């Protein structure tokens, strides 16, 4: 499909003979918010790393904005990555740089934006993710978990990505912080119109944010589609998800045949 932002074509992954994915095919279309859900160790994060090109699948092919990642020269790959933003699970902020420098870093790499502009953009991004400007001079070690996620989001958004990857964006956040975090991602997405791939096992997040849901279980993609449809799947993992207490609470209003 030419309109697909990310396309996985028969992707399989194995580490030292241990198979993680088998024949996974999946496309993410423009402005989709895809939730990638699966049990612990089902290779969600690995799949995401393969989409960004940080890892190569053992077989199969990943296309990012239509370009096959395995056959790209480094310069093209870097240009493609430039169009993606990644929010890593633990934030992955540069620990030796202040919050300001962390967000300014990707902007400085562009080399076409002048200093005063970078300054304004950084403070705007901070405001965008709901952080006070006084945070800018702090080091990552002096931030709380929720603040680290917000700064990391601001950094991931710095280059105006067309595609945003979120790895467990709500893990380690309290319920209220998680909710406002998800809300701000949702409103930013509707304003800026980027595509989102979110790896999670937070069912509340899936319910509130995702327009598409892909479920990984038993090394395969067992269901893919709009959340309401996917949750009707008969696969045992989806069933257990649906019948879990949290599943009941989040998706309880749905009626199942």
């Amino acid at each position: 499909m030419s309109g697909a932002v990310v396309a996985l074509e028969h992707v399989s992954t194995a580490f030292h003979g241990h198979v993680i994915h088998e024949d996974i095919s999946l496309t993410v279309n423009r402005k989709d918010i895809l939730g990638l859900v699966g049990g612990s160790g089902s290779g969600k994060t690995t799949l995401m790393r393969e989409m960004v090109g940080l890892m190569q699948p053992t077989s199969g092919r990943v296309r990012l904005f239509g370009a096959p990642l395995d056959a790209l020269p480094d310069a093209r790959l870097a240009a493609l990555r430039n169009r993606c933003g990644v929010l890593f699970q633990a934030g992955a902020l540069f620990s030796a740089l202040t919050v300001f420098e962390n967000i300014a870093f990707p902007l400085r790499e562009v080399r076409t934006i002048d200093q005063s502009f970078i300054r304004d953009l950084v403070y705007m991004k901070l405001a965008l993710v709901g952080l006070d400007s006084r945070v800018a001079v702090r080091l990552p070690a002096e931030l709380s978990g929720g603040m680290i996620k917000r700064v990391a989001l601001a950094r991931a958004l710095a280059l105006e990505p067309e595609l945003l990857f979120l790895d467990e964006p709500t893990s380690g956040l309290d319920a209220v912080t998680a909710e406002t975090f998800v809300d701000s991602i949702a409103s930013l997405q509707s304003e800026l119109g980027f595509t989102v791939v979110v790896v999670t096992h937070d069912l509340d997040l899936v319910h509130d944010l995702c327009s598409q849901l892909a479920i990984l279980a038993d090394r395969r993609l067992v269901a893919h589609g709009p959340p309401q449809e996917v949750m009707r799947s008969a696969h045992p993992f989806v069933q257990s998800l649906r019948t879990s207490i949290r599943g009941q609470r989040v998706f309880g209003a749905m009626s199942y045949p």
Partner: protein
Amino acid sequence: MRTGKTLEGQDTITGHAGFAHERRTGEDIVVLTGYWTLRGLGDRIPALARALKPYAARSEVHWDLTRLAAVDSVGALVLRRIHHEQRPAHWAIRPEHAALFRRWYGVEIPAQPPRRLPPLPLQVATRYARGALDQSRAVITLIGQFVLDTGAILRDPIHAPWADISATIYESGARALGITALVGSLVGIVMSYLSALELRAFGAPSYIVNILGISILRELGPLLAAILVAGRSGSAMTAELGVMSVTEELDALAAMGVSRSMRLVLPKIVALAIVVPLLVAWTDIIGLTAGMITAHLILGVGIKDFLLSIPGSVPVINPVLGLIKGVVFGVVIAVVASHFGLRVKPNTQSLAEETTNSVVTSITMMIFVDAMFAIAFRSVGLP
């Protein structure tokens, strides 16, 4: 109909940002075209700003933003600057851009927080003094805790961290045999070769035994072995403790009620106190052997003669002194490495700094201690 000027290269296929000036029914209309995005704007922000300034100064100009192919927050910020932070009086935007422009024109850009002033010289001096005081207190605490832990072990030897000690002995000792042998033999060869040239001139080749024996056994063997251990194991120990503090493993240990000085510091000190003298002996033997073979090849000193004359020309206190120095060096390396490892703050720069500090300090300390030994034992074991 189009009458105004256009910036070149504004076509939307290549994705550049541009604009066009139109006149319709007596009104000036500025039409923004193309991609007003980070990538679309590229390096043309100053040019666009200059070109649009005159229009922004006139409030009757209409701004048509409906033909933008795309706009993002960089584009919105550029426009906001062109418009002097004010929304133009007349503008047309697409509904899907409304939220974006509302946000970017509505938001106040926060003022930059005041910079931290550079410290005064007196403040710097007091900071250094406090740092030095702090460090010496930390070292003394570390050593004191080690003494207490040793006492605890002597009372209850079964619960000593024998496995950690043994692992450190293997890691810092057994695995250092290759490199110490290589360095020892090279230094033995060089010493022997250089002395041989001089001794041949004096016609006293048999003195090679005294020269090699005393210099290697007393000075070079201990110092070389210890410097290698400081570089190999001292840095590794600092980095290990540093990463453990970054990943909160130290706190995890404390939360389990395990003493970090007992589990992490004591094994390092005990293991290095055992292993460095052993490495010293090993370096001595290899260095002396290499020197002996070189002397045999260059000066023709017989291997058997060389070996037999060692006891007579090198007093036994020399190798013993070397071994004692090895014990002290081992303790110095372990204490310094642990001290700096526990000082690492949770960032990459601090880890790099403290690891460097650890190696530099332990090598400097060892040479200092070596000089003390040389002075204290100046009348012992020398002919």
